[in-house]
């Protein structure tokens, strides 16, 4: 049974198959723009990061930023894709106030990256490959600001000319779940590669969502394209909404218009963005200011040599070499920072214990303190230090949770927190023996009950010892000593 068969939607007149293709615009991580030296930093005051080239002053010429080319190739390699040693930058011509040149420099017929694949992991534990059609580089546009004056609009060109990678899938996803899994996986891969920060809320990753429906086994239906969707959840809402809207239209005997839509998050619906009469003829042609881009085999291989371990390989290694469960490995690699942190804390230690701590108490501390794995108060080696103290019996697991809390409060290493708070586990038999003697003298009736066969009272005695030591007594040692003494 193929995946597509699983996801048929039952309409009033029979089953429908949903087909989804995505065009993801991912902002390239680079200090400067695709064709100019202006900064790409997010959040600067309007029009403060604009070069003469970005503002399209007369006589200005684009010069390719090699870093952006590297990042596109790196991404292509991470998507297991064909790298095209020859590619061409084209002009896509249209008028809009956020586009100073009157054209966007993009890649049309000869993109820098060709076909590839992304493996997605689905909730039922299965996984499959989603086919990538291409990746090309292009310039971002500026931003129009309409609310500063009642009858005038303003334009902020800070974003103008920032490098985007447009990553286009084939129409190869068959449910909103698959599309969501794809977007999450793509974002993870981009973050592992360091080629895009994947922050959808800041607009550095956004998706155009293409949706169509068809009867099983038939040709593709007419698709709609919903532009600029800026969260994974919204993308899934678009797909579900469009699928049901289109099925309803078709079952009522209507037809689907190939149109461009916008998603309204408030209503969860889509609406038409522009009519066909306004459809653009972009008049693509090769940008005469730029020579075709030719990359040497060596350039590409040098980038390949510096590729990091990617999520799929990492997950395999966690399972096969470190003995983690598929679930744990999957959770850890879904977040690059978490995986890096895990590896830092697990190095030379019991990986399963480290994984439990990272995904459990440590993660809980982070979310409570509104921190993340990229820059936590307690570093990976510090957590490792804490694990060492547990392993060598200096502290118990229970005490360790308090120690971790102390570490977050102070930023100090685990041994210092243990020292300062006096949390060191008491394994000194003499001290524990003295305490046991005290307890037995103070509670002769309990001693009697135990000796007459009520052996479960051992727990009560251990509790007393723990109370006297504020939990620091080594429970194993206490237990052994108690049994010896009580046995008389």
């Amino acid at each position, binding site marked *: 049974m193929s995946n597509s068969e699983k996801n048929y939607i039952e309409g009033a007149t029979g089953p429908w198959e949903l087909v989804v293709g995505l065009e993801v615009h991912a902002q390239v991580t680079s200090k400067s723009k695709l064709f100019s030296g202006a900064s790409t930093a997010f959040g600067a005051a309007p029009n403060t990061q604009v070069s*003469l080239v970005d503002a399209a*002053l007369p*006589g200005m010429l684009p010069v*390719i930023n090699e870093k952006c080319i590297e990042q596109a190739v790196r991404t292509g390699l991470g998507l297991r894709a064909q790298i095209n040693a020859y590619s061409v930058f084209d*002009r896509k011509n249209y*008028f*809009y106030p956020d586009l*100073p040149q*009157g054209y966007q420099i993009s890649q049309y017929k000869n993109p820098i990256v060709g076909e590839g694949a992304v493996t997605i992991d689905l909730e039922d534990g299965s996984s499959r490959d989603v086919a990538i059609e291409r990746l090309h580089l292009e310039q971002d546009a500026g931003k129009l600001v309409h609310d500063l004056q009642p009858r005038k609009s303003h334009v902020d060109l800070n974003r103008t000319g920032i490098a985007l990678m447009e990553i286009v899938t084939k129409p190869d996803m068959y449910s909103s779940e698959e599309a969501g899994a794809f977007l999450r996986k793509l974002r993870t891969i981009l973050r592992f590669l360091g080629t895009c920060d994947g922050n959808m809320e800041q607009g550095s990753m956004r998706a155009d969502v293409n949706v169509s429906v068809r009867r099983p086994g038939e040709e593709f239906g007419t698709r709609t394209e919903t532009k600029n969707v800026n969260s994974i959840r919204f993308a899934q809402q678009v797909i579900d909404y469009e699928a049901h809207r289109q099925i309803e239209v078709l079952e009522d005997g209507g037809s689907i218009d190939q149109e461009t839509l916008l998603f309204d998050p408030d209503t969860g619906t889509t609406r038409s963005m522009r009519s066909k009469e306004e459809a653009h003829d972009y*008049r693509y042609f090769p940008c005469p200011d730029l020579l075709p881009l030719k990359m040497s085999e060596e350039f590409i291989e040098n980038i390949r040599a510096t590729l990091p371990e990617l999520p799929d390989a990492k997950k395999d290694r966690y399972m096969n070499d470190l003995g983690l469960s598929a679930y744990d490995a999957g959770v850890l690699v879904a977040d690059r920072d978490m995986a890096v942190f895990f590896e830092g804390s697990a190095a030379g230690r019991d990986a399963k214990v480290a994984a439990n701590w990272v995904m459990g108490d440590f993660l809980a501390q982070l979310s409570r303190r509104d921190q993340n794995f990229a820059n936590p108060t307690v570093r990976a080696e510090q957590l490792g230090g804490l694990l060492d103290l547990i392993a060598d019996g200096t502290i118990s697991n229970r005490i360790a949770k308090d120690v971790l809390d102390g570490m977050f409060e102070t930023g100090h290493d685990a041994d210092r927190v243990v020292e300062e708070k006096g949390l060191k586990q008491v394994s000194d038999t003499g001290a524990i023996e003295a305490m046991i003697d005290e307890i037995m003298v103070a509670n002769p009736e309990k001693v009697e009950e135990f000796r007459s066969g009520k052996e479960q009272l051992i727990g009560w005695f251990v509790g007393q010892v723990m109370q006297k030591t504020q939990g620091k007594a080594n429970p194993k040692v206490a237990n052994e000593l108690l049994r010896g003494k009580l046995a008389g």
Partner: protein
Amino acid sequence: MTADLTKLTIAEARDALAAKDFTALELTDAHLAAIERASALNAFITGTADQARVMAKASDARRAAGQVGALEGIPLAIKDLFCTDGVLTTAASHILDGFKPPYDSTVTAQLWQAGAVMLGKTNLDEFAMGSSNETSFYGNVVNPWRQYGSNSALTPGGSSGGSATAVAARLAMGATGTDTGGSIRQPASFTGIVGLKPTYGRVSRWGIVAFASSLDQAGPMTRTVRDAAIMLGAMSGFDPKDSTSADLPVPDFEAVLDQDLKGVRIGVPDEYRVDDMPEEIEQLWQQGIIWLKEAGAEIKSISLPRTKYALPVYYIVAPAEASSNLSRYVGVRYGLRVEEDGDDYNKMYERTRGQGFGAEVRRRVLIGTYVLSAGYYDAYYLKAQKIRRLISDDFKRVYQDVDAILTPATPSAAFALGDRIDDPLSMYLNDVFTVPGNLSGIPGISVPVAKTEAGLPLGLQVLGPAFDEEIVFKVGHALERAAGFNEAPDDWWSDAS
């Protein structure tokens, strides 16, 4: 004395300045005075007299301190297509009203670096689109030459008509031009001066208002071949800000001028005989062949079979690129903005572009938009690019057998203003001999060699292989020597102003 200073060539002035015969300021003042008397020629859009005097004084100070650039103290005119820092730059278009760029083009920056002085910004066809200088928003330029016994105003050619006139009328020692289809060489021929279009990529395009990016190339306009070699040396070189700029060393162009032509093979293309070409141009061409033969060159008949496609190809490729290059002029960020209450941005764009661009620019934007449109792209633009490659291949093939090519520069001498402005096709024919060089990217020079019977100057063109400006200069210099043309137009304009 100052009147005579304007008659000097750049090379002569260079020596005289070095000998302290006069100062850069005196040299500049002489030219500023000549410009002031020549308003009837309408060669300048913007005069920069104050700045020129400041630059000239600074040049004298540098010379006193022992710092002497290749063009130290030489007053030049700049085609108003080159952006100049803080100085109005118009491209002769209404749409760039008030535009003062905060930067200098690479070419002008290099000229100032070499010690040159800016006299002003010269008139041109709007966005360099035209062959008669009549499409300028600032009015046409007038050719300083007139037919014998006639007072009718003639075109200086275009698009670098203001630069050509400034140099021919001794208002500037040299000028920058740009050549997209012949815009340096044709006006040079019409005004009896030297004009060189370098190899595409030899001179940076950064900071020059773009017309057709794959064809535009800046070059010098001077009164002698030697002056052109001196000026090109200062203008050219690799510029990392222009991705199409060639990363090659700049030869000493002046050093090759006096080399003899022994063993140099000159090709004469059969296809450069066009219908209706005046007999005297054919004769001049034959005379040129004889001069070069006498100078030791070997003459070879060659064939450039795709020549006839050059103009149609040019009038697809150039407007296509122009339609896109001119999309930035919409009134949002600089220049003219025309809007009325309640306009949305589309309406504002329409008004601004409709009123800001002249008829010829609008015509070419429409042609360019058409040939790039869905459904027409393959039939026009793509096919034109393929033929462009074939035209280029023609040259590559013949350059295996010859070192340079000799042709007429233009199919006619200067014509009357108003004669062809309503007939674009006949206007476009002006560039029939120059356009193939732009399409192939190869260097070409127009050298004045004679006058017509009616008294108008005519030039011959020497084309060379890519990045071999040296052969072009060498052959051009031989023609110049043999022809001995060193006439200046009679000064009628000083009285007329």
